[in-house]
């Protein structure tokens, strides 16, 4: 059974979003996503400074099985990326919601957060997939 954290927001494409008080949000992939992908061996992070629209493919996670696009959950500017993933991509398997975070955005429109799924909504989406 995959872990879903109550204090995060989610997308149907299995990204999680942690909204900070300073107008930024950190993005990663969910426990369900890392488990489905299998052992992760390479992560391509976006360039810092890149402007993204919600739904843009802006990172790639490659497992032993296949490459998967990671989509920006919100519009904004990439302000930080997890450089540790370059040498230790397995952090996503080991700590999907923690050390395996992928990038941080400065959110263009704080109101857009309301359009994301909450934990109950994501859990319901997982249940519907199963």
């Amino acid at each position: 059974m995959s872990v879903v954290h109550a204090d995060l927001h989610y997308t149907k494409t299995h990204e999680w979003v942690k909204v900070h008080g300073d107008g930024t949000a950190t993005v990663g992939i969910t426990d369900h996503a890392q488990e489905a992908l299998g052992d992760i061996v390479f992560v391509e992070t976006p360039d810092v400074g890149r402007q993204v629209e919600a739904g843009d493919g802006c990172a790639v996670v490659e497992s032993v099985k296949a490459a998967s696009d990671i989509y920006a959950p919100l519009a904004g500017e990439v302000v930080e990326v997890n450089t540790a993933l370059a040498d230790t991509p397995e952090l996503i398997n080991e700590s999907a919601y923690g050390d395996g975070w992928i990038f941080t955005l400065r959110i263009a429109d704080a109101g857009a957060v309301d359009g994301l799924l909450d934990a109950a909504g994501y859990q319901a989406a997982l249940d519907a997939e199963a």
Partner: protein
Amino acid sequence: MGLRTPLFAEHERLNARIVPFGGWDMPLHYGSQLEEHHAVRRRAGIFDVSHMQPVDITGSGAGSFLRRLLANDVVKLKDPGKALYSCMLNDQGGVVDDLICYYRGPERYRLVVNAGTADKDLDWMQAHAAGFDVQIDRRRDLAMIAIQGPQARALAAPLLPADCRDAALAIAPFFAADGARWFVGRTGYTGEDGFEIILPAEDAPGLWQGLIAAGIQPCGLGARDTLRLEAGMNLYGQDMDETVGPLESGLGWTIAWEPLERQFIGREALVALRDNPARRDFVGLLLTGRGVLRGHQQVLSEGRVVGEITSGGFAPTLERSIALARVAPGLGATCAVDIRGKAVPALVVKTTFVRHGKPAQAF
């Protein structure tokens, strides 16, 4: 739902992730594909390969039938138990399937063909059996377990029946020990030593449980694929198929050109291609830039597309990305691969990357 092997309940008990493959529901991994891969390189792992299809070929015309059917020549098989890897070609020189052929005695052979192609293969064999005194027996009653790794044979030996245990430990690579119920080949698809055991379906769960109890790592199709890729072994349907033959997929060594008078299916097409200067090469690639090589990515040289990756992935033993690729003749020592629109540099190398746990070439 796909077909299930006699070991399906064992996979469920081990919490395998099950995926469809060649019409079968098979284990992809049992937790971590990387751990399974390393277990085979360092110690031992077991694989359920019961989806593969043994086919027994017997009758006074068995040998002459196979000399017509296969691009390699079973006349090389003089000692009982000896195995031969071969392609079975169509008239255009494309590959209907690749297979292993074991010689069991005069006019007695056992083929092992791929799962997804078994129906087609049997139809092909039947269609070309006219005029030969031959029986073609698809053995649906048999299961198959591969045990691979440096310690595989020693760990498996106590579980073998008395009538083939000593023989199984004595045979050279690419031979089989033929017991009354079990058939033990010293063959595999990983680049490591080991056995492939063909046995009655009802015996398979007991052997599997014994191997698990001996502490051997169960391994799924995921590790099977990264192990065979590191070993530079082709996968049917990916590295070659009915439109691409052995000369353009690194399997020229499996064609028995002599004797010249042996008219095997596909020979004329192969002879024409052999002398064609445009014939494509089959090479190994080692990615030096960042990323992961995957099937169908384009190979670039001096900005031009010169070929395509047929199999690619992350090589756990090398901790690098590697690939097999079909390219225009004359590619130099370096190239690039188009990964999501970026030309990422790679080295052109031999197709064997790993053998017996170690890099097979200096990278």
